[in-house]
């Protein structure tokens, strides 16, 4: 099989993940987009590992490391999402604007308390 087949699949999967991160409003669905992007990167690692016939298996090992980092990220993100839900009552990323850059600082007084 040509090497560009898995690379093309990884590119398209990454683009789909970018779309999910940009368009979704629920924070958990944004996380799912991030997971798709991480998986696309893993496909690239494994494909190049198979093509280069790496005796150290660097590509597959790095794919494993990426999976571990994704698991840690989801654990932390779950804690943050639950904290946001407790303090705000919703997890819509559009509405979370306390950290946004504003021209008028007094505008903040009504939203953040």
């Amino acid at each position, binding site marked *: 099989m*040509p090497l560009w087949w898995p690379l093309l699949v990884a590119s398209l999967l990454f683009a*789909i993940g970018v779309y999910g991160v940009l368009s979704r409003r629920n924070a958990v669905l944004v996380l799912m987009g991030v997971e798709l992007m991480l998986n696309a990167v893993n496909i690239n690692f494994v494909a190049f*590992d198979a093509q280069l016939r790496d005796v150290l298996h660097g590509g597959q090992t790095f794919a494993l*490391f990426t999976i571990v980092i994704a698991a840690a990220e989801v654990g932390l993100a779950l804690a943050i999402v*639950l904290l946001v839900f407790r303090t705000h009552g919703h997890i819509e990323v559009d509405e979370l604007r306390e950290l946004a850059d504003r021209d008028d600082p007094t505008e903040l007084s009504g939203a953040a308390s």
Partner: protein
Amino acid sequence: MSWVEAIFVLLSLVALGSALLVVTTSHLVHAALWLVVTLGSVAGIFLVLAAEFVAWVQVLIYVGAVVVLLLFALMLTRAPMGRQTDLSVRRALPSALVAGLVGVLLAVTVVAGFRDVRLDLDHTVVGSAETTGTAVFTVWVLPFEVLSVLLLAALVGAIALSRLRAELSGADVAGTTPPPDNSAARRDR
């Protein structure tokens, strides 16, 4: 087209189709279930590409743990069942434009760069548990240890965030109901 290539194309189509459903479906729980299909197909792609151990780790950690954690998050934030129309509609067109540009750029780059390279899977060493374990615990043992420290830090961070929540709820800042002035400000926008 050999049967390996046919299986690869089939798995890729399933992965891409279900990934599209993950980012476009209007049911919250369905998105998590389509994510299971996507991650399972990616595990199959890993198997085709001779990465056996990575494929099983993908099934164990992604399908087994990460999706369960995401479903937990949906459940604990009281995600409504059924259709939701306001899940992704507002910025769909600019997002699709940016994602399409990213996809076209990446695809054109990799296809132009590796057009002539063949992937010979017949003579590739299969990354079984033995070969992968030997590689991880001999050559990559230092990054492996750093990764364990990172996991410990993530665990401590998650516990610290949960403790913060307990202290806040004691001070009557956090609770199951949002602060009244906050929700009023949200309605004004």
